[in-house]
């Protein structure tokens, strides 16, 4: 029952111990089950109750990983790993991706369009639970056999023999289904491009042609970051001490959040020397030096 026994059954071989003759699971697996199962149920409840979609997704990830652990305990290591790769690695990641795409902060509305639907839903779920537990615990239950014989040539080999033997048609069909689904997703999310795509080359060429008419080739100057004020809404100063308007981001300028340089003394500090040579812009000075 200790963690060492648990480890001995899962770590060194990667395979769980086999079933006892009476069909009961060994002690280590029992401990594992009672650790993992409550976590999984909590995760599932997290899906049901969490307000934010990302928290729900994380709860589902917990359930999926617990499921993978249980598969490994149930002598299905291949399925356990495939579970993590497929569900945790791809499906839930896709969910997170879509959540981020459609705005993760959109929390659920609790306005009922059908009155009483929530309570009916909860009642239906509870009823389902009771009925299914009745089904599971009732009925005749023969002693479990275990997969020792079926897994004799290692579990992936056993599964592969079935997939490519008995179930090969179903396998091909699922392949076709996957391709259809991928095509369907592409078609559903496809948007016709109405305007020509402007790439890096086109942008550069456009900048070059506009250069003569007051365009700019280089990025815009960065906003002023001074010891007194480090926000992006204060313009930088040019060598003459005058504020450069385009150094403040366009969005801030449009919203009217731009701030004046509030200290004339700073301008004064830079000002006098630069003021005398103010007729020389940096470009012409460089010409002179060369």
């Amino acid at each position, binding site marked *: 029952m200790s963690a060492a026994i648990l480890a001995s059954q899962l770590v060194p071989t990667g395979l769980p111990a086999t079933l006892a003759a009476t069909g009961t699971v060994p002690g280590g697996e029992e401990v594992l089950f009672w650790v993992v199962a409550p976590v999984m149920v909590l995760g599932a409840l997290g*899906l049901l109750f969490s307000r934010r979609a990302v928290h729900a997704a994380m709860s589902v990830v917990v359930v999926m990983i617990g499921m993978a652990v249980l598969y490994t305990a149930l002598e299905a290591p291949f399925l356990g790993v495939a579970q993590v790769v497929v569900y945790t690695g791809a499906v839930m990641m896709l969910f997170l991706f879509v959540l981020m795409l459609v705005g993760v902060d959109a929390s659920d509305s609790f306005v009922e369009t059908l009155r009483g639907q929530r309570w009916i839903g909860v009642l239906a779920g509870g009823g389902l639970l009771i009925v299914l537990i009745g089904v599971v615990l009732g009925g005749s239950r023969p002693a479990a056999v275990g997969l020792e014989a079926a897994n004799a040539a290692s579990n992936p080999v056993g599964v592969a023999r079935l997939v490519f033997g008995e179930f090969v048609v179903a396998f091909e069909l699922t392949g076709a289904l996957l391709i259809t689904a991928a095509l369907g997703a592409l078609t559903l999310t496809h948007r016709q491009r109405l305007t020509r795509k402007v790439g890096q080359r086109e942008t550069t060429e456009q900048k070059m042609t506009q250069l003569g008419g007051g365009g700019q080739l280089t990025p815009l100057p960065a906003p002023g970051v001074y010891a007194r004020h480090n926000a992006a809404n204060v313009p930088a100063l040019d060598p003459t001490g005058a504020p450069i308007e385009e150094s403040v981001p366009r969005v801030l300028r449009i919203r009217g959040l731009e701030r004046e340089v509030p200290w004339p003394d700073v301008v004064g500090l830079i000002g006098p020397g630069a003021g005398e040579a103010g007729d020389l812009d940096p470009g012409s000075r460089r010409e002179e030096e060369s």
Partner: protein
Amino acid sequence: MTLSYYLVLAVILFAIGATTVLVRRNAIIVFMGVELMLNSANLTFVTFARWHGDLAGQVLAFFVMVVAAAEVVVGLAIIVSIFRTRRSVSVDDANLLKS
């Protein structure tokens, strides 16, 4: 402990998933509820595979996984395209025929 505890766990997860589908309004969360139901069905498959000593259960669980992946791809694509036209992922907002 016998293997039926795994089945009970699967049933609990299935019921929670079904309740999620019935109660929640966010299409993405509803979808995750469906995934939870599929997973609990898989757990039943794998448990019965061990119970009967037959790997066919595991193979079926494998197929369920593939089908679920295909379903998620299409479903999320539908959600994204609905979101593009209605700016919402609530299932209540998708019941209007005219936008």
